């Protein structure tokens, strides 16, 4: 009984932490409430986010502010076509030791940080993009046959511009799949634009307070995984995943017509884990169907590959996900 009394306390602490981060970010970032929540969810789930939006929406600002508010190390990598993998992971440098003997010393790259901003990730070549694969999945990098562990928490926040496609290299599906969420940045409203004008043209705000540290984040990460979820809800999530696949969902719909390949099992992991985090932040001791539905677009949209017909007709993955969520019943025999 005493142990169970901890649960509401930890839920309250998780909620409070989120509110604190959100409040701190609100000092410099205008709007994007849902985006901030999703980024925080990805952080406490140990996932990475792909942020997509036109230039000037505050993607970089938000990531940098987040790192500042979290008291975590931060590095930014501007992806360009001439960027090499070693520029990300680090490289072996020939140096001399104290005795004057020449040795190879590993110079850590910018990937060695808690929060890594991969700005305009689609401007680097696929070879360079792939340098992130191991880091994102295994949380380690291998250089010259030697593995180097990255510090926890580790989070990659990659940005990409959806309109300037010239001179870009679309991310390979394998890499896209490694992103926990794909978040879309909406253009600010009139009120938000006014506030942005106020914030950026007056006296700059004071430096952000560090409201959360790595230890607290790792604790919340453990609590997230302890949130109970009913088998029926897991089954619902699984059926959502299957419904994104053509020829496997048993339904007639857009997925059947426009999807080349549906969401991967990583999509299910993302769906369930994100739903758990959302429940925790809502101070609810269990996952609900609404949690699954709420995180489905961010978890699944980048994992659905449209076929030529879908591309030609301008069908979006968001539309497919919305249709699937509306069609799949919560309980099914």
């Amino acid at each position, binding site marked *: 009984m005493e142990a169970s009394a901890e649960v509401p306390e930890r839920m309250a602490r998780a909620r409070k932490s989120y509110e604190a981060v959100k409040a701190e970010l609100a000092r410099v970032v205008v709007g994007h409430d849902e985006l901030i929540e999703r980024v925080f969810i990805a952080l406490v789930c140990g996932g990475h986010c792909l942020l997509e939006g036109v230039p000037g929406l505050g993607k970089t600002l938000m990531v940098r502010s987040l790192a500042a508010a979290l008291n975590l190390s931060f590095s930014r990598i501007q992806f360009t076509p001439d960027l090499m993998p070693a520029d990300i992971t680090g490289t072996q440098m020939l140096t001399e030791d104290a005795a004057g003997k020449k040795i190879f010393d590993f110079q850590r790259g910018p990937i060695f940080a808690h929060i890594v901003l991969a700005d305009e990730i689609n401007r680097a070549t696929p070879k360079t993009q792939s340098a992130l694969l191991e880091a994102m999945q295994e949380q380690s990098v291998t250089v010259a046959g030697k593995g180097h562990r990255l510090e926890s928490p580790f989070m990659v926040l990659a940005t990409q511009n959806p309109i300037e496609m010239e001179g870009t290299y679309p991310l390979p599906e394998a890499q896209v799949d490694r992103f926990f969420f794909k978040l879309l940045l909406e253009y600010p409203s009139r009120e938000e634009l006014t506030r942005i004008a106020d914030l950026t043209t007056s006296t700059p705000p004071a430096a952000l307070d560090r409201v959360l540290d790595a230890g607290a984040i790792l604790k919340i990460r453990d609590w997230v995984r302890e949130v109970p979820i009913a*088998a029926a809800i897991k089954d619902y999530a699984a059926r959502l995943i299957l419904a994104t696949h053509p020829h496997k969902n048993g339904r007639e719909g857009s997925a059947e017509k426009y999807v080349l390949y549906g969401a991967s099992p990583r999509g299910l992991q993302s769906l369930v884990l994100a739903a758990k985090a959302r429940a925790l932040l809502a101070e609810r*001791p269990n996952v609900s169907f609404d949690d699954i539905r709420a995180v489905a677009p961010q978890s699944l949209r980048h994992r659905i590959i449209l076929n030529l017909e879908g591309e030609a007709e301008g069908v979006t993955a968001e539309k497919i996900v919305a249709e699937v969520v509306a069609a799949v019943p919560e309980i099914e025999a």
Partner: protein
Amino acid sequence: MSHDAAALREKFSELIAWERAKRIEKVLLEALAYAFLAALLLLPFRGLLARVSPVYYPAAAFALFAAGFFYIRRWRPIDSLCAVFALDRALRLDARALTAAEIVEKQDVSTAEHYLLSEAAERLKSVQIRTLFKREWSWPTLAAPALVALWLALVWLGVGSGTGTAAKSAAPAEKLKDFAQELEQKSQAQKLAETLKLARALKALAQERLVEKTSEEQFRQNLAAMEKRLDAPVPPPGEFDLGGYTREELAALRAELETAKSRLRPAPTMRENEFLDRLQSLPRLGEALKRSGGAMENMGPGDLQKLIDSLEQQAANELDQRSRADVQQFLSMLMQGQEGGGAPAQARIPGRAAQDRPDGEKSVGKGELPGDEPGMKSQAAQAPVATPGAATRITGALNPGASSGVTWRSEAKAGESKIPEQGAPAAYRRQMEEDLAAEKIPPALKETVKQYFLSLGTDEKKPR
């Protein structure tokens, strides 16, 4: 198991038990509704299902529907899950109940799960399952009482009973009922107690069959038993021999006896032997006394009173016996007709012969035929030629007016006589009376035939 888990388990058990009970009720009510609907649809075709009483239609349909529904809607694990899910939705528990229902089945419960159990138990503690999930009535369950009532009404009204073989099987019962009703009226009019009892017994038999209380087989057995009962030996004739009297004569005699009894009552102004003068005007009484060898002149009023009472009783007995024979004959014909697979083609009710002509035309009585003056014999009358061993049909215009045909059943079969020797003359006379009434005897021969059969049994020298 913690207290919360136990409380939750109990609540979920209550919920599932209630939902199962509701489903069983619903299945039974819907099966009932569909069964009576099917029975209603079958009712017009009950003739095709002659062997099955309509009472069994809904029972059989109910068994079929109930079996089918119970199979299709059998309780499965997903139904338990759906019940808990419905509870979640109803109370807006955000899947707490659904998750708790799984956790209560687990042995090892984590801290977070333990907290969830306590929270769910707290929220479900005061929930009244039966109030929250009330019975829902689908249209078949709502229609069930109306369908039952409609079906009962239609069965009561006998809808569909007039079609097909069912009608055929009911025809003998209808005939028996008509016969019994007529016999009852007749016996009431003539004050024949025994005949009245018999008529009522026959009517009850027919009624049982008509309301389907008895099967056709049972009905046949009842008819056979009744016929056997009527086979009991005829009591010996009494002091007076009334065997030579026709039914009409016996009725007239009873009427005279009633009159005689009233005339024998002593009046203060009556002279000595005045009653004899009064009785002289009753010819049938005189003739009866004469036949018995007595004479009114030699009797006092007391003796005469006793004699009249005895004569009246015997006349009533004679009429009862004749009715009994009529019934026996009717039952025999009715049963023969039934065994042949339908109503007897030749079956007719004694005393109703005039209505039973095959062409449906009402027979014309002797007095209604033109041509003959009362008491005068027709000049053109000739004796018909009968061929022994074969049915003989004589057709022809005997008189101006309507033509008539006669069928004599002269075919004989070898074997023991079914009619006791003592009752033979009476049975012959009854047959003669019926044939006369049915206009089967040519008018010119009626008197001859009548005299011949009346003379049977009265003259010992005549061969029988």
